[in-house]
């Protein structure tokens, strides 16, 4: 039987963890398992990214994330959905978010998986701070632009 739900993880979503997640999405009625991995990329907005940090507001993440999962599993043909999002420090190449959806057929599983990642990005209170090769870092979108706030030296915390 599959496990539905949204969760946060401060542990790496490495090959072992991801394999266990895929295995948890089991149903004899499922003809398809669609998974999505969001990974840390080495560039953003023309800058070289060397790593990042995710911070999350846990209580609201769990209620809003679960609402997204419930909406996905209410779709016709969808048998189960699960999403795990990382918090803490990540390196380039690390899995930041994992989503798995099982369905009777592939079309509904693909569509529901897409729905989960789009809605999680839009509605779940998680924030990302990128660290750059030039020694600066910034929280993405904190100035409302969708880009990194003006970079500040990593070692001297800003004030205001």
């Amino acid at each position, binding site marked *: 039987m599959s496990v539905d739900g949204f969760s946060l993880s401060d542990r790496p979503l490495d090959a072992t963890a991801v394999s266990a997640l895929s295995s948890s999405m089991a149903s004899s009625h499922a003809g398809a398992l669609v998974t999505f991995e969001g990974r840390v990329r080495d560039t953003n907005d023309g800058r070289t990214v060397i790593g990042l940090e995710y911070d999350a507001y846990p209580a*609201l993440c769990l209620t809003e994330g679960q609402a997204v999962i419930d909406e996905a599993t209410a779709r016709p043909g969808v048998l189960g959905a699960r999403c795990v999002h990382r918090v803490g420090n990540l390196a380039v190449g690390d899995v930041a978010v994992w989503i798995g959806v099982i369905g009777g057929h592939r079309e509904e599983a693909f569509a529901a998986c897409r729905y989960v990642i789009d809605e999680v990005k839009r509605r779940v*209170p998680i924030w990302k701070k990128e660290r750059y090769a030039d020694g600066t870092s910034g929280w993405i979108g*904190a100035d409302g632009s969708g880009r990194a706030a003006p970079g500040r030296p990593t070692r001297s915390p800003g004030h205001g």
Partner: protein
Amino acid sequence: MAGSPLKTVTLCYYAAFREAAGVREEPWSSGARTAAELYAEIAARRGFRFDRSTLKVAVNDQVVSWETAVTDGDTVVFLAPFAGG
């Protein structure tokens, strides 16, 4: 803020707010009537430079309107635009 009784709320900060405030959480005594008034007061005192039109506010773990009344004992979180995924 005159005319509104003083109340104490708990402010929880995440991400850019945590960094700007320098703490994860703090008690805050205020006469602010609404979440909007509370934010204006804290932003002025803390020197926050966020564009409020891009922010949301949660009171007691629920996203609410900026006009929501703030009451004694509330937990308040200001939310910068989300950047998960």
